């Protein structure tokens, strides 16, 4: 089964070239049952990554393009009166897919944003008084564009905290881009991807993540990291307990991807920038884009042993 994981990793690697670290983080995010926020410029492969993930994992895929006139009903679904049965019939919205790409999430109004974020948090939606379970597995990849912020509604810190990880794909390396240009078209590469992991297998893997051993020494390391952000004057505020739980879960998933049954400090270090950078803000940085350097600083400040 773990071979299936690395096979899945390789399969996505072939579609999104030269981004194995990001792909691995995205997989770890799914395994840890978290949701993913990708912050990058247009055309960097956000959609490709999410589509490839959906295919490899055999998940149903829906894309919601967030715009300023998007309404919560467009996400969750609406009840429509059926004349034949003389009843209201619920037409489920795109949220009921297993993998959702919420594209440009910061373009929608806070009301629509929160409809999605609530669904992410609860794993269920309530429309017209009826509570409906979302599918399992359920995974949201939201994207936002770091430039051209006019007319957008930036996600508040409390909502950013709901995403387990924030990734930035970045430009590919020169070799990878050369391969990209010389190789087949993306679309055909995507179509070539076969489902490698079934739902049952994915659920089993997700269930195994909490079983990965995290020793006391490792927990102490995580606590040192978290406490350092709380006590240091460089951070405007410290990491929340949700962040420390997320850090541990992501590190476990990472250890699993590394084919190990226990977590070592390097696992924590690998996932830490993705897990904490959107949750931290430097004291002297009112814009809130300094999280990445703060994460690097944090890793250097705290001794792993």
């Amino acid at each position: 089964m773990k071979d299936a994981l690395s096979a899945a990793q390789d399969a996505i690697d072939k579609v999104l070239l030269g981004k194995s670290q990001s792909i691995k983080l995205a997989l770890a995010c799914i395994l840890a049952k978290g949701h993913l926020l990708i912050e990058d410029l247009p055309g960097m492969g956000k959609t490709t990554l999410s589509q490839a993930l959906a295919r490899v994992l055999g998940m149903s895929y829906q894309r919601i393009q967030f715009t300023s006139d998007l309404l919560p009903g467009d996400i969750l679904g609406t009840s429509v009166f059926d004349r034949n049965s003389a009843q209201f019939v619920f037409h489920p919205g795109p949220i009921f897919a297993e993998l959702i790409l919420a594209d440009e999430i910061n373009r929608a109004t806070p009301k629509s944003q929160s409809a999605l974020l609530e669904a992410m948090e609860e794993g269920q939606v309530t429309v017209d008084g009826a509570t409906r379970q979302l599918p399992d597995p359920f995974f949201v990849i939201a994207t936002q564009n770091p430039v051209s912020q006019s007319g957008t509604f930036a996600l508040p810190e409390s909502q950013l905290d709901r995403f387990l990880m924030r990734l930035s794909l970045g430009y590919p390396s020169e070799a990878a881009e050369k391969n990209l240009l010389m190789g087949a078209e993306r679309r055909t590469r995507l179509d070539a991807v076969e489902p490698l992991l079934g739902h049952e297998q994915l659920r089993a893997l997700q269930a195994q993540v909490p079983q990965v051993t995290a020793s006391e020494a490792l927990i102490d390391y995580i606590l040192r990291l978290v406490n350092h952000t709380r006590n240091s004057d460089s951070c405007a505020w410290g990491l929340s307990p949700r962040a420390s739980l997320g850090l541990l879960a992501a590190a476990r998933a990472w250890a699993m991807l590394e084919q190990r049954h226990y977590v070592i400090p390097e696992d924590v270090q690998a996932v830490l920038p993705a897990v904490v950078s959107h949750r931290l803000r430097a004291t002297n940085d009112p814009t809130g884009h300094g999280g990445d350097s703060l994460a690097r600083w944090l890793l250097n400040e705290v001794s792993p042993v």
Partner: protein
Amino acid sequence: MSAALIPRNALAWLLSAQVVVLLPHLTRLPWWVAVLWLGCAAWRVQIQRMRWGYPGRILRTAGLLLTGVAVFFSQGTLIGLDATVMLLLLLFMLKLLEMRNPRDALVVIYLGFFILATAFLFDQGIPLTLYQCVGAVVLVAALIGLQQSPARNDPWRALRSAAAMLLQALPLMLLMFLFFPRLAPLWTINLPSTESRTGLSDTMGPADIANLAQSPELAFRASFEGDIPPPSRLYWRALTLSRFDGRVWSQDRLLERRQPLAVERSGATLDYQVIAQPTGRNWLYSLPGSVSDSPELRALRDDTLRAKRPLSSTFGYTATAFERVQRQRDGLTEDERQRLLQLPEDSDPRSRAWAEELRQRHASDAELVNALLRHFNQQPFHYTLRPPTLGRHSNDEFLFDTRRGFCEHYAGAMTFVLRAAGIPARVVTGYQGGELNPRGGYLLVHQFDAHAWIEAWLPGQGWQSFDPTFQVAPSRIERGLEEAMREEGSFLADAPLAGSRYRDIGWVNNLRLTWDDINYQWQLRVLNFQSEEQLALFKRWLGTADWRRIGVLVLSLVGLVMVVQALIWLRPRRLSGSPAQLAWQQLDQRLCKLGLGVRAGEGPRDWQQRLRQALPQQRAAIDGFFDRFVEQSYAQRQPGEAQAQLKPALQTLLRSLPRRRPPAPSQALD
């Protein structure tokens, strides 16, 4: 920078600091100052809450002008210490309203430190000093709060850090206090007016000293080298009064010129030190015939000492008295004799007639003086703090009708009669006696010890002191005013809270004397620690008073401290933690010598990888240790039995390490 706001914490501490810093001044300032502060603080809080805006330019200019006007009307001037300090305080408050960013807040805090210092211009006692320490802590807390992030909400942390920092600065403060050169001020300022202070006045009318004797305030403290002399020798001379206008005795400036007085001194010497309370006047207290070499004072021709400046704060000096002194035995100048016999034309006819009579009966001056003293002793004179009021011919009424009076009545009347009989005489005012503080072994002289006696010039003997009060109430001289007034019950009758009233209650008295001793030591050792004392201290400690040698000594002391500190820092770190952490630190210390110590934030596997590349020969030992380390630390929830194998693995690795770092393998450059 303009976008930066003042953190809430910092504002809270800043406002608290303002309260603490302003409080000692508020007692001297009109009530509306407190109201103004409340207004400014409330406005600033509203700004912080984004309810109100900052005042505009016109409003601020108006506020500034109004402040100047208010100070002018309240103090009558815009210059001088009181007015400038008040102006500073008001601007300190108003600055709140244009405090937009942290830089402005810094200005306010630094101003606060300055205002902290200005309070010492008015009072230098122990309570204020301790209180100002609190002020310093709060100001530093405000400084710290200013550096904290706006989201941090732990005000006590700032206070704790501030207190810790100031405690750490304490040794430095002591060092500076002891060693910093006491430079003479470049300019002097007129220190606060002290007109309202109680104390001797330079004139003496009927009942003046009796009024002063109602005050329990301290006049000065005196300590002696050796035993304290008996009360009958403790006549502290302050002023001589030689002019009489029929009612009031006052100074004759011409008799107090700075002209040396011929004094023959002999017998045992008595060194004493006086710490005078501030009076706003410049006269000092000395025993008859004293000499002093303190540079801040001078001796006058009437055998009194004067400070060069009015006493605006406590003033200490030393002097020496002699067992036998004879002053101006050679004779008076004609001008002096005239002035010392001066009497108003038409006052007290009965006293004059009586003086004529005495003159005829006694040929020698000494006999006449003695006869007069006997008269006071034998006739029914009465010593009282509540003398009846006297009319136009006060000496007549006192000598022949009421015969009830306080020391100034006796001294005034006796001087009058002596002058009328042709004997040069003058009234001396000052203090007599004092209360022994057994703890500190010094004398406390209070205002109620104020006294007046006389001096007469006798041919062949020079100036001689006589105390008519002693003839009437010897207990006043020997045991003090309280004893003398025991029957009358008038001792400090108007001051029910004065500590001196409760001398009979043992513990109250003990407490009072102990507190006074502490104050005395404070004044003697701290406030009076000027360049002379500093040099004396250096001589005693370092055996030298040469500034260069002292500088070298201080610098080498500082250097020594820095070397010790450096040694502490460079000392190998003490290892602590779990066995795995100990092994990790041990390995780190050893590998640091090879330049391969663990890097900041490096995990075990990353370090292992780096070591494997740097030390290819030791790969087996490296893997042996790190595999066990990782297994033991991370593979189980709790440390397991692999712990036992960690130590041998570490030893193997440590033994295998080379003494020097091998040259980097060419392929391992990453």
